[in-house]
């Protein structure tokens, strides 16, 4: 009966921060009392939030000092505006100057905030550059994705620029939302109401099997914490040609092997999963036992 407190999905951004890091250790940068709100939402008669939908600051994780950011999916779907994006950039740059070991990005976002679309788009690319700059400076950048809004749009790209991604099955990682695809290309292309298909296509288990995320945990803040501790210790953090060549090969292989398939179930079968239809009901530990030997890019 006590799982709720522990559910990552049901926690707000602030609750995730409070529960994931060492108790009481979080110190927020530009906290809500600073009232650094979006300068653009007001003129469009939209509600603002005192933190512009992202909490950033310093904390201890298992005794180590880390930086952390958590996007609030409940506020405009976690979408990135000018201030929101700049908070992420500032955090990542400060991690470099203060030589912080790791930055944890608790992402939950639909991507660019349409009310301030140009600023959001530029900001997302600035976040990307800042993530890669941090990695080049030896800072491990780790993404946690387990919120109900998923990690979409530009933030889906940002996530894949980080060192490692930890997901829950309920978490989603993709580019365009199913509703956007349905609107643009028709319900035959992607039925956004078919949630089983949506999660098969974008959810944590599929991403783990494809090698897009490095760890999968159940929807528990405690499990995210353990996986985050492990991910922060992984080295090296910087990009090199060999690694990108390897990624190039893996992504090419993906198109070759699975490009003609139309449902993730076929991909899972092709990866050697004996009962693909049974995958969705497995809990995280059972799933990892089945998936780890068969997934792409496995480590």
């Amino acid at each position, binding site marked *: *009966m006590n799982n*709720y*407190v522990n559910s990552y999905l049901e926690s707000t951004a602030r609750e995730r921060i409070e529960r994931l890091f060492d108790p009481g250790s979080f110190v927020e940068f530009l906290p809500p009392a600073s009232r650094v709100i979006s300068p653009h939402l007001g003129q469009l008669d939209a509600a603002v939030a005192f933190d512009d939908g992202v909490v950033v600051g310093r904390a201890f994780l298992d005794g180590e000092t880390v930086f952390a950011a958590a996007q609030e999916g409940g506020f405009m779907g976690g979408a990135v505006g000018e201030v929101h994006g700049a908070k992420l950039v500032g955090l990542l740059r400060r991690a470099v100057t203060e030589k912080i070991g790791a930055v944890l990005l608790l992402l939950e976002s639909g991507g660019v905030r349409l009310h301030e679309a140009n600023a959001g788009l530029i900001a997302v690319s600035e976040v990307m550059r800042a993530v890669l700059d941090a990695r080049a400076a030896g800072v491990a950048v780790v993404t946690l994705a387990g919120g109900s809004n998923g990690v979409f749009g530009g933030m889906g790209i940002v996530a894949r620029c980080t060192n490692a991604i930890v997901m829950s099955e*309920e978490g989603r990682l993709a580019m365009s939302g199913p509703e956007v695809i349905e609107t643009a290309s028709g319900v035959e292309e992607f039925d956004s109401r078919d949630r089983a298909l949506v999660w098969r296509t974008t959810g944590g288990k599929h991403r783990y099997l494809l090698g897009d995320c490095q760890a999968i945990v159940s929807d528990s803040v405690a499990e995210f914490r353990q996986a985050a501790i492990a991910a922060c210790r992984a080295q090296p953090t910087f990009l090199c040609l060999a690694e990108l060549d390897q990624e190039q090969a893996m992504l090419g292989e993906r198109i070759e092997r699975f490009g003609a398939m139309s449902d993730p179930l076929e991909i899972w079968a092709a990866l050697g999963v004996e009962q693909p239809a049974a995958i*969705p*009901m497995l809990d995280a530990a059972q799933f990892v036992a089945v998936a780890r030997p068969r997934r792409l890019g496995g480590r």
Partner: protein
Amino acid sequence: MSAPSRVWDTLQSNRAGRLARARSVLGAALDGKAVPGARIKDLLHNVLECGDRVCLEGNNQKQADFLGKALAGLDPDRINNLHMLQSVLALPEHLDVFERGIASKLDFSFSGPQAARVAKLVASGQLNIGAIHTYLELFSRYFIDLPPRVCLVAAEAADRHGNLYTGPNTEDTPPIVEATAFKNGIVIVQVNRIMDVLPRVDIPGDWVDFVVCSPEPYYIEPLFTRDPALISEIQVLMAMMAIKGIYAEYGVERLNHGIGFDTAAIELLLPTYAESLGLRGKIARHWALNPHPALIPAIEAGFVESVHSFGSELGMEDYIRARPDVFAVGPDGSMRSNRAMCQAAGHYACDMFIGSTLQIDLQGNSSTATLGRIAGFGGAPNMGADARGRRHASPAWLKAGRQAREGRNTIPRGQKLVVQIVETFREHMQPAFVDRLDAWELAEQAGFEIPPVMIYGDDVTHILTEEGIANLLLCRSDEEREQAIRGVAGYTPVGMARDKRMVENLRDRGIIVRAEDLGVDKRLATRDLLAARNMKDLVRASGGLYSPPRRFRNW
């Protein structure tokens, strides 16, 4: 004096004429009772006559959608002025028949998804409403003054003789077919498949005239599936108050629940909160209820002993089959539902109905009608009404009756508990409490003789909101009743206009009860208390037997 000789078999000869026309036009294409799907319009054009009363099976769950589409595609020059009889208008083609001039009159119960379009067609004069009924009332009229000349129904499967297997979703089929067949009407059935041997016979073949195998299985709506992830803390609080303040207070053992998240929260609190109060075996043992997935944890925890259902629910088939002690199942192991029987059971055999609504006025009348939408009622009014014909006693029924009659010189008698559970504001800050129901204006606009009230105030015994419970049984005057309602109406204009002193007096007398008066600890009112917090928890609770429709999954 010689009286002109009267003909006594016009219905039979008319029926014979229709059958002969159909046989002649279909010729060799007619194989016993089986009509090829491609010839459905030929069949309908020939068995139907202008002005016929036609009952199209369609309720809030299963739909004879293939036949409905065919009907909507008929030639209005040949077939027009039909009088449609329908439990529920759910699909667009249910209204296309009016728009295209094939039908002109309608008697029905519920039109939720199409309510706005109904209102438009009424306004334009293309649709004349006979009356809006409750389910039981409409079924009853099929046998008295509205027997269908032709009915178009849906079944899971048929055999060569026209015997029907309706399976878990039997629902409305039996009364429709019986009313039609035994008044010399024509019974046409769409089936998903034709089998040599049926799993069981739900409708005997000699009541059935034509069977058509539809290219797609009939449409079915998972109407009673509520994702626990969407239950709010406020709903948890209200559910705690309901369990402690009403279920436990009256010892309610036999009951019916409405469809919303408020009652889903109660179902999910039985194995946790109610268990902690030691209520297992004492409350909520026997149900008239669709197989709500949210009931699974309470069934597994041993709270629920029996459930009889109006219809089935998509994805619950295997679970039901595996719990034959709880659900009504046939010799084949699958469920048998029956809307008419379950409505009667809900009315006469249950001690309590609890459900939500959209608007409540100062007399306690409640309505789901809103402007521009003619939505109807469904089953709630049959459940949510005192069964004045009831004669058997039970502790809950007697206690309610005692409270209503205390201090009055009347003969002892029980009363049904009818509870309306609402948050004082719905989403978008729509107040649930109003001085005047929208139903009045709707009635004026549509020319109804009476406003479409879902549950009459004099049947309502309790109103439960996040602010408290108003026990209307204990009110002794209209004024007390009004203040009791205002006293739980929160910050709505109705609530803020309360007489504070009188409300405090009602509270002292236990007519208004707050969470703290009940000893309900508000700090416990979190989603933690739900026995399942998401769909997957429900699947786990069912031991993997419940298989939710795809749109309810996030896996």
